[in-house]
């Protein structure tokens, strides 16, 4: 029996502003508790919200990057419920008149190839504070530094068909939002949060099954794991003749299991109504056009440009544009004079390794270009250059040539030295020489390797071969 999973994702991203959505408190992550607070975000009597222009700009930019339509008029609404991290007893959000609707994220699905997942809406809202449960026995601690931070909520259509697709969607969404400059999108720092909905139905069935919501997901990998666990659970239920109840589940990263929220609350009645403290957000065509014009080059376009203008393969372009800083670095290396494919190889290997480990580029693009130049002129072998790179990554200010000297890696191209090593190798391997002269020309590689070993990597392989060829005639 086959089943189809139907998945939708609700993503909250923190917009990259300096101040909160409705007050001028800083949004800095990690400050001592309750130090970035004021009457407004503390919900004190008499305080009033005033919207942050940059949050609106970034929200609109994100919406445009996702191909959404921006509405000329949108309305802030109060979402009413009680929770200790919600100072006013309501969250200022947007309800039936959101900032934007109707976008899409195009990503590669392992099962289905290129998929265009719809985005239902993107709206602006304020974040809640943070609760700490295990610091004071019998108590919950409340930190309101985060209360009021600007968020964009991005809701997808239920267009995803597998946990893996959910992950791919998220990876692409995150990439687009980082490129657009709208958010840092870091799940570790809480600037990107995901809630997932999943239901099961028979393939070809048009109605949706009852969906479950999964929360408390702290990485894309865990989104995939959680959805997989839930998919299996729901299928198990249905195959056993049972029905799926509409539940909210929490994912436990340690066990890889999902379990229902401890008490089943009646579903919330948020009693949405337009916030009377905030006039409608009115954005005219000129303003929207300006946001569109200011959109940075997005991943798809950049990928294309690198392929076409720089002539690098599609695979390379995809890898290089996976993170905007990586693509920026790559283009800087090319601009410094390195041939694109060579630059791509370097950036996709050594550079990307350090970037993934440290999040940065310890070797400046210009320095890498210098290093590559040394390989091109034969001063260094490629292997030696990799070792020089590794060294430079530790102590960033080194000049490649000086580092190579210090490590004793400068290649020897001097004919006399090369000839010496070649002679030593040929003398040490008479059997192979005989076999080579007997027709096994592929042993050339063996001899080159031996010369490299004997020279402790210093011989210039390009110079070695002709010398060998001469000697072996």
């Amino acid at each position: 029996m086959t089943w189809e999973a139907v998945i939708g994702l609700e993503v909250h991203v923190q917009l990259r502003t300096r101040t909160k959505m409705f007050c001028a408190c800083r949004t800095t992550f990690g400050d001592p508790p309750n130090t970035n607070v004021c009457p407004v975000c503390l919900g004190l009597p008499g305080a009033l919200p005033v919207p942050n222009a940059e949050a609106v700009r970034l929200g609109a930019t994100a919406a445009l990057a996702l191909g959404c339509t921006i509405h000329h008029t949108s309305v802030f609404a109060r979402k009413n419920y009680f929770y200790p991290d919600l100072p006013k007893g309501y969250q200022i959000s947007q309800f039936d008149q959101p900032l934007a609707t109707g976008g899409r994220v195009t990503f590669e699905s392992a099962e289905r190839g290129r998929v265009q997942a719809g985005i239902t809406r993107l709206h602006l809202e304020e974040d809640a504070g943070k609760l700490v449960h295990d610091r004071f026995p019998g108590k919950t601690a409340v930190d309101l530094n985060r209360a009021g931070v600007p968020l964009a909520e991005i809701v997808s259509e239920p267009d995803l068909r597998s946990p893996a697709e959910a992950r791919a969607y998220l990876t692409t969404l995150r990439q687009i939002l980082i490129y657009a400059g709208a958010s840092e999108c870091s799940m570790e720092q809480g600037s990107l949060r995901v809630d997932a909905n999943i239901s099961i139905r028979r393939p070809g069935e048009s109605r949706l099954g009852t969906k479950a919501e999964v929360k408390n997901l702290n990485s894309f990998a865990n989104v995939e794991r959680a959805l997989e666990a839930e998919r299996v659970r729901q299928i198990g239920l249905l195959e056993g003749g049972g029905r799926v109840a509409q539940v909210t589940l929490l994912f436990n990263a340690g066990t890889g299991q999902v379990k229902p929220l401890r008490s089943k609350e009646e579903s919330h009645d948020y009693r949405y109504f337009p916030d009377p403290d905030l006039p409608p957000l009115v954005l005219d065509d000129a303003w929207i056009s300006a946001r569109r014009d200011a959109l940075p080059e997005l991943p798809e376009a950049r990928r294309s440009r690198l392929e076409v203008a720089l002539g690098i393969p599609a695979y390379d372009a995809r890898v290089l544009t996976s993170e905007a800083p990586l693509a920026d670095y790559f283009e800087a290396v090319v601009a410094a004079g390195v041939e694109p494919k060579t630059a791509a190889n370097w950036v996709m290997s050594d550079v990307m390794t350090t970037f993934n480990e440290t999040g940065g580029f310890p070797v400046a693009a210009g320095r890498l270009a210098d290093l590559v130049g040394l390989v091109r002129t034969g001063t260094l072998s490629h292997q030696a250059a990799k070792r020089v790179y590794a060294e430079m990554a530790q102590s960033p200010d080194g000049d490649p040539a000086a580092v190579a000297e210090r490590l004793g890696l400068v290649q020897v191209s001097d004919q006399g030295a090369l000839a010496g090593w070649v002679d030593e190798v040929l003398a040490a391997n008479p059997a192979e020489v005989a076999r080579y002269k007997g027709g096994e020309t592929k042993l050339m590689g063996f001899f080159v390797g031996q010369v490299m070993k004997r020279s402790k990597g210093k011989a210039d392989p390009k110079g070695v071969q002709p010398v060998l060829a001469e000697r072996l005639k």
Partner: protein
Amino acid sequence: MSAAAAAKEVGGRLAAAEPLNATLHWSQALLDAEAARVDAAPAAGALGGMPVALKDNIVTVEQPTTCGSRILEGYTSPFTATAVGRLREAGAMIAAKTNMDEFAMGSSTEHSAFGRVRNPIDPERVPGGSSGGSAALVAAGVVPAALGSETGGSVRQPASFCGVVGMKPSYGRVSRYGLVAFGSSLDCISVFSRTVADAGRVLSVMTGHDPLDATTLDRPPMPVPTPLADLRGLRVGLPREYYPADLHPGVGAALQRTRAAIVELGGEVCEVSLPHSPYAVPTYYIVAPAEAAANLARYDGVRYGPRKVGPEGDIRALYQATRGEGFGAEVRRRILVGTYVLSAGYYDAYYRKAQRVRALIAEDFRQVFASGVDFLLTPTTPTPAFRAGEKTGDPVAMYLADIFVCAVSLAGLPAVSLPVGRSEGLPVGAQLIAPFFEDERLLAAAAAIERAVPAGAEVR
């Protein structure tokens, strides 16, 4: 007189006025501190040392702000309202925080957690509400001016009951930053005074855009109005819906006299209609409680105010006990009504519908003013001040006290109540209403009427 000397005098009058129960917080020390600031200032400022009392839902750093409620007992705000800052910059001295119906919900100031306020004219009667304390202090001559707040008439109505001037500005002209919210789309800081001139002086200092309040208009502040010498060339409309056949005869007589004075001043009087008037009070009692239910959700015992925890000892027990015990009966009732009309299944039938009817009410006024009428004249209240305890048994009976003032609040218009006579010794107020943003003209015309009508004279 130096401000220091004035402060001593005000202190003396406040002490003498204690039986009115009109104040919640005042001290000679704080008065002296205000005076010291005024005396040290390089210039007198537009208000030159005027002592002004504040309704206790306007926050100040120096005194507690309780909104007449136990749930904020002892709460002292860490910031001061914009309007108060502007008063101080203009040289005013803050005299006291005044008693009020709890969270501004009421029409008699009998719903304060700290006891009712007595009408200085007749202590067995109510001063009106919710700004009864401020009205009483001005009526008793303790201070020349006081701030109140209006959501559905809470300054005009007590002004009428106490025989003083009560001026509600156009919505959005005075910053609400620092006014504890009740009905956000209705709330207006408003002014009590003994004269129209003083109301104008105080209001002009407070009006103007505030970047901390997104509902303030980005339009110029109101200049101090110049009183009109007469009303020639002006047309005053009398909306028939505000003159029912069974209007209290004393009120009717006072309005008649006012109308005659207007004609003598050269004004033209005509009958007009505001057909959706009957829907004003029901509309108000959907919109205001709904907004209030959300505005009062922040009083949960988590971050400020006294805290109570119920027997279960969990977070829910904290919320329910703090709120259940901290809020009085009228506030609890309105929160429940407000929550109900917003709840699933009822939003369209109540709140959304009420906001649309509100548009019709506002449109009635717009059309009448567009037809060539400059102002509207109505009674402020259907009767003079009633006795304490008379209307507390039935919530709806109390709501009907607002019948003539409510619609103006829904439409966001400026309106002033003037004392225009006495009926069996009790003050009667007449209400003058102007088009949106015409606050200056309104007060200019009101000044002319004030001169022409003997406020203290018996009408029958």
